[in-house]
């Protein structure tokens, strides 16, 4: 609502460059596109640093989306714990904060939102590649918010990584581990 979007959902996924945060957002956006007429995916990253802060804002709605810039999302997904800082206060009351637990030296302070701390990197390493942490978190997000049916996301994953079997099964596995973590 605060973005001027009347009927829809806004989420910010944040992390550091090169770790798949933009791709996770894009998979989400493309999945949303099968259900909503209006979808915006807005990536953002820094100039100077390889591996600097980076985020994707995804909005979807059944009505036209005015602002692609989202100040108060319903959810934030934080893949690099240092990024929590700037985002914590921005989530709408009643919203969701999902955050990578590795390196997170503190608790989330907000008590008016649902919070989930996720060992996404560890889970991804377990599956075989730390790079899949993004899909673990995407799974948690979908599992927790149910903004979209998981199958829609899964089929986007299939579409996106279909060309490479290893990568595909890795990402699939990561996503379903995320879903499971959400329901646990």
């Amino acid at each position, binding site marked *: 609502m*605060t973005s*001027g*979007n009347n009927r829809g959902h806004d989420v910010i996924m944040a992390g550091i460059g090169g770790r798949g945060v933009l791709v996770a957002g894009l998979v989400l956006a493309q999945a949303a596109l099968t259900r909503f007429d209006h979808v915006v995916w807005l990536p953002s990253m820094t100039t100077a640093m390889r591996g600097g802060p980076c985020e994707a804002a995804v909005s979807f709605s059944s009505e036209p989306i005015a602002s692609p810039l989202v*100040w108060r999302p319903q959810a934030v997904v934080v893949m690099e714990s240092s990024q929590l800082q700037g985002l914590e206060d921005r989530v709408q009351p009643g919203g969701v904060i999902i955050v990578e637990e590795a390196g997170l030296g503190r608790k989330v302070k907000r008590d008016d939102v649902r919070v989930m701390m996720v060992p996404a990197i560890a889970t991804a390493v377990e599956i075989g590649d730390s790079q899949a942490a993004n899909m673990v978190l995407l799974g948690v997000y979908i599992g927790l918010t149910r903004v979209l049916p998981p199958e829609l996301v899964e089929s986007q994953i299939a579409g996106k990584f279909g060309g490479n079997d290893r990568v595909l099964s890795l990402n699939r596995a990561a996503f379903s581990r995320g879903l499971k973590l959400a329901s646990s």
Partner: protein
Amino acid sequence: MEEKLFVQGNEAVGWGAVAAECEAFFGYPITPQNEITEWFAREFPARGKVFVQSQSETGSINMVHGASACGVRTMTSTSGPGWGLMQEGMSNLANSELPCVIVLVQRGGPGAGTTRHAQMDYMTTTHGGGAGGYKNIVLAPASVQETYDLVQTAFHLADKYRNPVIVLSDAILGQMAEPLERRLLEFDPLPHKDWAVTGRGRHSDGKRRSISIGQGFMPNPTYPTYLSFMEGLDVKFRRMKEAEIRYETYLTEDADLILVAYGSIARVSQGAVNMARAAGLKVGLVRLITLWPFPYEAIRGLAGDAVRFLVVEDSLGQMVEDVNSAVAERSPVHFLGMLARHEPREMGMIFPDRVLEEIKRVTS
């Protein structure tokens, strides 16, 4: 052409160029427009069209010069520093009366600045640029779809006036993805490019053709003297001013505060207007589509004792000068610029909520 895509604004540029039957693209990498160059590298050769990665933006604009002289539709794209390098070329294209499209994806300046969003190239595209006081239409889309549409419009206007046309995008618009419907726009028919330099053998009258950056000092049948050339340009620029102003109003009828914005910030402003209306405030928006020609009359028409203006622009204040000039003291004009970004690093942005805050401040 019913296909619906989900693409970035930068990719929509490519699709728009295909729709406009652009035949040749010349470009040099620069963030945040790389997806444009890469799109053309991928898609143009496959369609039998020309893609050349130039050695620099000066190279791009001069290759565009050559290709345009052939009579085909041609374009380039760039950002910040690359735009600076095209200024001699822009001036030459204007002298040569060569149509072409330049997509400028704005980033933060000056200098290398940042590769992130900003709207700091209003003045250089509308008032300044290279030497010699030429003018060019500047189209400012505010969505992925409109980027696609305005690229088509830009090619039409370029040919119509034999003058370069700028599509002014920005890093937000260029990088964000939205659904895109690939519809072909319809335009009035244009005359055959009889002036094109194609080799003497292809001209119906058997007479050779020439295109020169020296119109005015090298006499030609159209412009035997410098002053006749100046008169020609003057008439042309006036025609553009009269015929090509484009803007959109949103809830301005009953508004006592009218926002003025363009590009991605017009979207942000629209979000703020929606929030303000929800809060019962009578706020509207003028969204500029052509930055040049500027809708002076339209804005002046909206001005008056009962109305205030708030210019929202992700810069230190550029378009606000033209709004001031249009309003001519008939209404107060307020300004919300880049210093209102939410945080000091380059990823700082002007959010709708901040605009709303300013709306409240101004109206209270």
